[in-house]
């Protein structure tokens, strides 16, 4: 349906363009004056008046059609008294019957009626969709064509419209942020209506199993997220223990010691490391590193879990090595050459220059890079989903199984989603915590790096 409507819109804008162009030529010939702008601008003017109203209709239909139809179908549904209905399942059943008449066998009469109601509503909606698009395009063209007079400054108007479009494009980023913040806060508030915020932030018991249906004999769930935060922290610490020394030393070597040729080869290779999808690292952790960690633990007499924090953290560390090394490389390169020369000039050798002069000078930038890396590690999902555990565990032992914030978000949303159940909503509360922490780390890191840059400019 929506494909053909796109074709319709394309035909509409093409013909409106041609129409606008020929119309203004005709009009200026009639009046015997030259038009204020080139004919193409008038054509573009008609086109815009044709296109944008049509697009608005198109998107509002695409977004709201299904919901409105469903509401009408449900409100007209002949509920049998005493029977219990699940609205989502009911709708799915009605839709199935409507799309596929062969499913109708053995369904109750209400459902078959509702299905035919549903398909007739869909038909009405389609017809009115096409007619309203055609009408709105004609109206737009009609309005625009009234303005097609030689004394009308089409170019000015078009340029103003272009400005509006550009402003809209740049505000998409703002809308995205607003969308993130509102969806997180809205669902989190629903979560905190059922679970106290203090329990969530300070209690150490995470047992998110609340009976979904009545009569299930699951214990009352408890939502203390401390073990999850602790697990996230542990994995992050392991990752930074791997990535910080390796990344920083690599950056120092590349910036200060390596020849041009080595840099030219190694930098793209590190970029490959940075471009590998995280699920690939997850596979690597699961297949190679986790068995290795388990075997290593056994050899030194520690019983390592197959989903240990160590395996997930080490692989995550490898993932952020290129991140740290490229950021630190930039930072080290922006330390003024004069500092290096002064230090070498009074007789210090290269290592001493780096350790006593360059690193202290670059320290704020390096700290900023580390903070960004930490924020990256906390938000990383796929490695931990595959290689870390799902059971919360409050421990400092990296050989044990831990879980992280991102894992719990995935676990809460991967099965049945019930948006009136705290278990599903807990994903949004955890997401909010994650968002706030990473945002905070980023703002600090960007501030530090910015100040650092200003110092040497």
């Amino acid at each position, binding site marked *: 349906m929506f494909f053909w409507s796109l074709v319709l819109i394309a035909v509409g804008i093409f013909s409106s363009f041609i129409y606008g162009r020929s119309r203004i030529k005709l009009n200026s010939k009639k009046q015997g004056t030259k038009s204020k702008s080139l004919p193409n601008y008038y054509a573009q003017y008609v086109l815009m008046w044709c296109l944008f109203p049509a697009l608005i209709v198109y998107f509002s239909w695409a977004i709201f059609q299904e919901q409105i139809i469903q509401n009408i179908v449900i409100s007209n549904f002949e509920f049998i008294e005493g029977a219990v209905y699940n609205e989502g399942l009911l709708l799915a059943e009605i839709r199935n019957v409507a799309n596929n008449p062969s499913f109708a066998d053995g369904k109750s009469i209400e459902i078959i009626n509702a299905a035919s109601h549903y398909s007739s509503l869909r038909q009405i909606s389609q017809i009115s969709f096409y007619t309203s698009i055609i009408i709105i395009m004609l109206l737009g063209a009609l309005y625009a064509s009234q303005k097609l007079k030689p004394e009308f400054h089409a170019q000015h108007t078009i340029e103003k419209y272009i400005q509006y479009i550009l402003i809209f494009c740049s505000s998409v980023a*703002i809308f995205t942020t607003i969308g993130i913040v509102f969806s997180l806060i809205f669902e989190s508030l629903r979560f905190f209506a059922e679970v106290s915020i203090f329990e969530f932030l300070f209690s150490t018991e995470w047992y998110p199993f609340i009976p979904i249906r009545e009569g299930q004999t699951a214990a009352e769930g408890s939502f203390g997220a401390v073990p999850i935060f602790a697990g996230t922290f542990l994995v992050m610490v392991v990752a930074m223990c791997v990535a910080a020394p390796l990344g920083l030393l690599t950056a*120092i070597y*590349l910036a200060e010691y390596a020849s041009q040729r080595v840099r030219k080869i190694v930098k793209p*290779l590190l970029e490959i490391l940075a*471009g590998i*999808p995280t699920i690939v690292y997850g596979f690597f952790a699961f297949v190679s590193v986790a068995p290795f960690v388990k075997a290593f633990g056994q050899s030194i007499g520690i019983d390592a879990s197959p989903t240990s924090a160590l395996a997930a953290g080490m692989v995550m560390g490898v993932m952020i090595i*290129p991140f740290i090394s490229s950021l630190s490389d930039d930072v080290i390169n922006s330390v003024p050459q004069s500092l290096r020369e002064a230090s070498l000039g009074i007789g210090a050798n290269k290592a001493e220059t780096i350790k006593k002069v360059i690193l202290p000078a670059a320290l704020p930038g390096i700290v900023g890079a580390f903070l960004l890396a930490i924020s990256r590690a906390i*938000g990383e999902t796929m490695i931990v989903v595959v290689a870390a555990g799902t059971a919360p565990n409050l421990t400092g032992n990296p050989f044990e199984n831990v879980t992280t914030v991102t894992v719990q978000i995935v676990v809460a949303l991967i099965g049945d989603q019930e948006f009136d159940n705290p278990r599903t909503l807990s994903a949004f509360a955890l997401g909010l915590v994650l*968002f706030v922490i990473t945002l905070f780390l980023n703002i600090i890191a960007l501030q530090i790096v910015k100040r650092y840059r200003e110092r040497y400019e």
Partner: protein
Amino acid sequence: MNNSIAKEKIVSLRKKRSLEDMRFKYYGFTAMCLSLAVLVFLLYTIFSKGYTAFQKTIVLLEVDYNQEVLKLTPDSSDEDMEKGKFFRVKKQAIENFFPDLSKSDIKLVKKLFSINVDKEIKDYFLDNPEVINTKQQIWVTAHSDVDQLLKGNSRRDVPEDRRKLNDIQLSYVDQLVEENRVKQVFNNFFFTKADSRHPEIAGVAGSFMGSLFTLFTVFILSFPIAIGASVYLEEFAPKNRITELIEVNISNLAAVPSIVFGLLGLGVLLNVFGLPRSTPLVGGSVLALMTLPTIIIACRASLKAVPPSIKEGALAVGATKTQAVFHHVVPLALPGTLTGTIIGLAQALGETAPLIMIGMIAFIPNIPTGLTEPSAALPVQIYLWVESAERGFQEKSAAAIMVILIFLFMMNAIAVFLRNRFERKW
């Protein structure tokens, strides 16, 4: 006397210091080599685990297309042929697979074949209807357990209850190998089929198409919006608080964890707007929002690289600002923006977590044909296979990783090519 002691001290100190220098350089070198060694080890792991997935095991089966068993006649219409009783032919073929099979052994032998064999027997017949009432030797797909055993991925020296194939089945497989009735050929299913519960007929075609549709959506949404936003911020925006807010916002969005974008997609696109779950349309929209900052940053850099003299020249001969920007600056910056977009798309291709959030993790056994059809995506497919308990899926996941890495490599190669070919140094 004192002089020489001091000299000795200085010499030894210098030696120590230069040793320290060497050591420090060596540390850096080792760190770099370690990082690269991990890269090599990672690629080696993927290759060594995955290359076997490009082969499948097939078994020679003698099928008797008897017209009575099939309930067909040589001049049945095509429609009737479709309805032939091929499962009975298959049953017969398996009963006669080895001479003198007991009833319990028939059950065991049946488990050596893929579930797809029915269809293969049928397809062979429909392609060559003249084989009716003849005995045909057909190569059919073996079960994943046989496949894994012959590839050496599952071990036969573990106790029987921890193996997929028991001792009797093993002896039959050995007999097949001896009689040359089993061989390994190129696995065309891996590239032509969608996901399946049975590893031997699971492929990446479905998730590959899903990823293509998703990337298409990302491109359609993010490319124009990113160009619009960066042109505005770079060329038109007044220097005020709102502009600054937008800029800070973009740089912060670039660092928001991808899973949070998934929550945005779930909370807003699915729950508020009611867009269809598990579809490339929603997945692409979420990934487009996620990659937008990356692309905007790249676009702005390439717009900045166009020298102001070009714009000033246009302005001097009477162009308006809009004309100067859109006729002169943007076309010159286009290769750079395209490069940035491709790199953003490459990032979107490998992203998994947001797609899981919006339900692209559902089991989809057919190949999607449109943007609003439920479909899988390559990285999510890899995740599903990694998590699967079935042994046969592990090699599939590694092979799917190879596919995605080759795809990524090609995209980056195109980006580099564009950069080298079209980017001008001023």
